[in-house]
């Protein structure tokens, strides 16, 4: 065990110093009746070389990476510049704890302060926290926050909000006397404004919608926010594809009171769903209701600028059951990756990445739409994902495409039973024109 650093001699001398005869004696306070009298049944210890072979062999059982994939739906494959991996894997970032001692944690604290600033700039809001777990739980936290602010007990969830996010919101609120009501979408794939108007009332705490939504369609953020505000409810905009904010107007400038969601797109690998990067920004009047850690600027005794964790009287370690959230550990290293990613791409690079996503998705939508047996399902404007309706059942089409080395999209019927034979196709900047053409060609063959 190369990680355990005591020699037999150390052990013996330290046991003597402690005043016990054996390591067993160190556990004398554990009742004998419950102590484990056998060795754990685990595989034998492996050397580094054996471990590498074992894990690589398990990895090879993932056939996924041998396909060209057009999957999105809340997890997006984007280019990650080498500096992101290189800098974020420095031991000084990987191996410290939460920066409770600011004098020896200024690196992490300043990086998080920059992350908070970047999130504010992206979302168009006043303040942002240091991160939350991931998009779905961040959405649930936003719902609880809206309830605290408005003291109202109903939330409206757009059906175009990621189905898993809606499920998680329901899991979170189930025991708290809150009610969640789904709001349907119209033929453009956007929230149905009339239905929203009917569902809104004086018990509504928030209208929660995603833009671009789960179908890739960009919602009318201003109209949804206006509708919410008309009933003194909050407008909560969820962003699952954060790269879109390089191009789309900031939701905070279109009336959203809270913008929350998933920052995985910003330099975090898809990695089978985690760890990801929940984020949250809001107007400054809601500061005291914000969940999670916050980094603030201050000065030291000599008047030099420095950064600290602040406003922790909102948090569980001070306020216990009256805290704004039970969250403690967040996603520090993922937030660092996102900060390095955004700062590397910068003002022009992030916009260009977003522009290319939009362009390539538009090209793909045109190419696929021209295939006989493929129909665009929704008429609303899209960012980097769109829904196609196929002349054949999706499982058969999916299997046919896979035979050609392609994963063409995500079948929507399980989550949206009304969307029979429909699939969600995602095209990021990583897809080349050739790959898009290949998908169109393959679809034509599979559908003919």
């Amino acid at each position, binding site marked *: 065990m190369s990680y*355990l650093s005591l020699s037999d001699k150390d052990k013996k001398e330290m046991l003597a110093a402690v005043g016990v005869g054996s390591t067993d004696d160190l556990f004398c306070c554990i009742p004998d009746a419950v102590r484990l009298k056998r060795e754990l049944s685990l595989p034998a210890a492996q050397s580094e070389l054996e471990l590498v072979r074992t*894990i690589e062999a398990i990895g090879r059982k993932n056939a996924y990476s041998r396909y060209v994939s057009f999957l999105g739906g809340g997890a997006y494959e984007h280019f990650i*510049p080498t500096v992101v991996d290189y800098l974020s894997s420095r031991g000084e970032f990987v191996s410290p704890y939460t920066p409770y001692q600011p004098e020896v944690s200024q690196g992490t604290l300043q990086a998080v302060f920059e992350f908070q600033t970047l999130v504010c700039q992206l979302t168009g809001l006043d303040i942002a926290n240091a991160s939350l777990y991931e998009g779905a739980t961040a959405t649930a936290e936003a719902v609880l926050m809206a309830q605290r602010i408005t003291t109202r007990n109903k939330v409206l969830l757009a059906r175009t909000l990621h189905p898993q996010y809606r499920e998680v919101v329901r899991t979170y609120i189930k025991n708290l006397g809150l009610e969640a009501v789904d709001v349907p979408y119209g033929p453009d794939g956007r929230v149905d404004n009339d239905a929203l108007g009917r569902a809104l009332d004086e018990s509504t705490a928030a209208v929660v919608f995603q833009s671009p939504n789960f179908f890739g369609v960009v919602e009318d953020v201003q109209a949804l926010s206006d509708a919410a505000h008309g009933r003194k409810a909050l407008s909560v905009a969820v962003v699952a594809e954060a790269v879109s904010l390089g191009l789309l*107007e900031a939701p905070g400038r279109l009336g959203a009171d809270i913008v929350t969601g998933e920052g995985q797109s910003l330099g975090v690998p898809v990695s*089978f769903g985690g760890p990801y990067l929940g984020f949250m920004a809001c107007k400054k009047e809601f500061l005291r209701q914000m969940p999670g850690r916050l*980094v603030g600027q201050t000065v030291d005794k000599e008047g030099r600028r420095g950064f600290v964790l602040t406003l922790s009287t909102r948090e569980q370690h001070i306020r216990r059951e009256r805290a704004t959230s039970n969250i403690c550990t967040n996603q520090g290293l993922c937030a660092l990756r996102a900060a390095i990613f955004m700062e590397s791409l910068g003002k022009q690079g992030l916009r260009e990445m977003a522009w290319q996503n939009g362009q390539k998705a538009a090209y793909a939508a045109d190419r696929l739409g021209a295939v006989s047996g493929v129909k665009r399902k929704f008429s609303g404007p899209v960012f980097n994902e769109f829904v196609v309706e196929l002349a054949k059942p999706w499982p058969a089409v999916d299997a046919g495409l896979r035979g050609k080395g392609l994963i063409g999209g995500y079948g929507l019927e399980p989550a949206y039973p009304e969307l029979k034979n429909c699939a969600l196709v995602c095209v990021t900047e990583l897809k080349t024109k050739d790959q898009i053409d290949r998908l169109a060609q393959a679809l034509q063959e599979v559908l003919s």
Partner: protein
Amino acid sequence: MIKEIREPLIFEISEAGKRAVELPALDVPEKKDLLAGVPLRRELEGFPEVSETEVTRHFTRLSQKNYCVDLGIYPLGSCTMKYNPKVNERLSGLPDFAASHPLASEDLVQGSLEVLKRLETYLCEIAGMDAFTLHPAAGAHGELTGMMLIRAALEARGGARKYVLIPDSAHGTNPSSAHICGYSVKEVKSNEKGTIDVEALEAAMTDEVAALMVTNPNTLGVFESDICRVAEIVHAKGGLVYMDGANMNALTGIVRPGDMGIDVLHINLHKTFSTPHGGGGPGSGPVGVRKELVPYLPIPVIGEKGGRFVLDFDRPATIGRVRSYFGNFSVIVRALCYILTLGPKGVREIAEFAVLNANYIRKSLEGEYHLKYTTPSMHECVFSDKIQKEFGVTNLDIAKRLIDYGFHPPTMSFPLIVHGALMIEPTETESRRDLDLFIDAMKAIAREARENPEILHSAPHVAYVSRLDEVTAAKFPVLRWEKKP
């Protein structure tokens, strides 16, 4: 550390026109009217513009302002800062894992599902539980998930009940998690040994109490010796026992929570199984349960069918989803690697070495620092500043002075039942040399407290910043950079 390095905020060194990353030219015909009618932003106002050299130097300089485990002992009690094996970092990022998409069909991600299933199986053996879910993203998320499971099980028995009992020494996340699960919290006082007062528990345990949340070893680093009796009392009144397994690293291979009456527990992979803390996450807080609670586990559950791993959504009694997808996967890979590297003997040595190291520190510092509870220590020991207070020195002064000696301070002012607490946890990976260096520093500081307390009040002296004004930070919050008008 070089005191003089002042690193500006990236926004302050930004200059128009620079960038660190170029993308290939667009290879599809460009539509000028893309997203016509949708409000687009003119520019990303305030976003920085810097070269790759500048980004690299910026973050390298920032990194040098951090203390970290790779540098030395990080004795934060309750946080369990142990060495993070480097091979685990590499393996968790293998392209086959890093690229696998969570919405891919099961047959394309058999390897990822095998990782999840294997870790679940090993955790069941280590904790003595019947099933594990790896969904929770961190310990507090595990607590919330666990309390939801308890609530669901009690509802199925006939009623969710109203209260949750929590000892006064507990982590703040415990009452907060119980609250979000819709329960009211009742505090149980600790006895003079620092453990649960069994009589007080008996009095508090009624048929309105859903559960007891117990940390074992507790936050004093003391094993709850009466745990079996405690579990009996709770079970006799129809309640369930939740264990906060944050301190599981003191027990691995020695005793299993499932064998001492625990119904539900969470484990922190970033504590017991060496996954890095990353400056505040990502963590991972798997939850283990006894058979009765299996039907309520969050979906999807990893199943096996005909030799293949499958995602089981057909769980009518489930509490639902607690997050998107399947958990903090790459953290889970790292924990699996740790267990495979250590094997059964090594997993036991996690506890043996952690407890030996903690007791060695305790013995070496006893007398120099006050020990409120003299009950035997497990993996951590909690001193206080009571002796040093006589010279006007507080735990804060001691903590900050440790920085001058090149160490990260211990956890301060927690648990709440020890006034002026200094909670020290060395973990199993420290060498005797590093322990001795730390002990020598603590002894030197105890001496300074008597002879030259002023040097402690003004510490740290050799950090990038001196003590920071936290009061002003909270009173007049500046939470982001803004362009000067």
